[in-house]
């Protein structure tokens, strides 16, 4: 639901008068509610990234080793933490793209992040299941 910038109060529309053409800050100041919603989405992605880092650390530090699979814990922990780092950066880029679209009154671009997250978590679940079965077989 995008709102034309012309419907905004003058105080909001003129909040960034020096925004130059071509820069990320150009266009007109969008409705404050959309700006806040975009910011909350960015923060939610960052919390997801942090949760993945915590999960990775927990796997590496708290899980007992998989019998017969010496690097099993690292195999699970490293992708989780790396995905956390990727989500943090991608979340920022997503926020920037959305903010630019809002400032120009354009439709919001489709985010690749949900697909990346879902695919990665599915892959991690499969790797975890294989590791458990493998270590049970090798015990």
């Amino acid at each position: 639901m995008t709102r034309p910038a012309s419907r905004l109060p003058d105080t909001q529309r003129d909040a960034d008068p020096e925004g130059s053409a071509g820069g990320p800050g150009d266009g007109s100041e969008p409705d404050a509610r959309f700006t806040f919603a975009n910011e909350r989405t960015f923060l939610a992605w960052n919390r997801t990234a942090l949760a993945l880092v915590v999960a990775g650390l927990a796997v590496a530090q708290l899980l007992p080793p998989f019998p017969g699979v010496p690097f099993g814990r690292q195999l699970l922990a490293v992708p989780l933490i790396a995905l956390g780092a990727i989500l943090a950066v991608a979340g920022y880029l997503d926020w920037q793209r959305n903010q630019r679209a809002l400032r120009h009154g354009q439709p919001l671009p489709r985010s690749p992040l949900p697909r990346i997250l879902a695919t990665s978590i599915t892959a991690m679940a499969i790797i975890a299941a294989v590791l458990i079965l493998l270590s049970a077989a090798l015990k």
Partner: protein
Amino acid sequence: MTPPGTGDATPAGDMEEIDPGLARERTSLAWTRTAISFAALGGALLKTTPTVGGPVLGMSALVWGLGRMTHRSGRPEAARRLRQLMITVTVTLVSAVALAMVLLGGGSPPR
């Protein structure tokens, strides 16, 4: 009576259009949740690796402070961008440290 945010609301009929206070409050709470997430991670790390846990715990204060930061510069978009960038860099740094801990064997031995 038309509920707020529904129907053919005139600008005066929409509570959040007059003052986006609720949106601002929700965003403020989101910043607080993010700071708590940092604090939880810092607290957990403090038990195993205090040298890493301490700075991460300190970062939670930084995140909370960033959430409270007001736009005094007169260029809200630039200030917003800098703030988001700082959070991104912080989370990426924490991830890099965690990755180093896992790869260099900084984890505690299994009991």
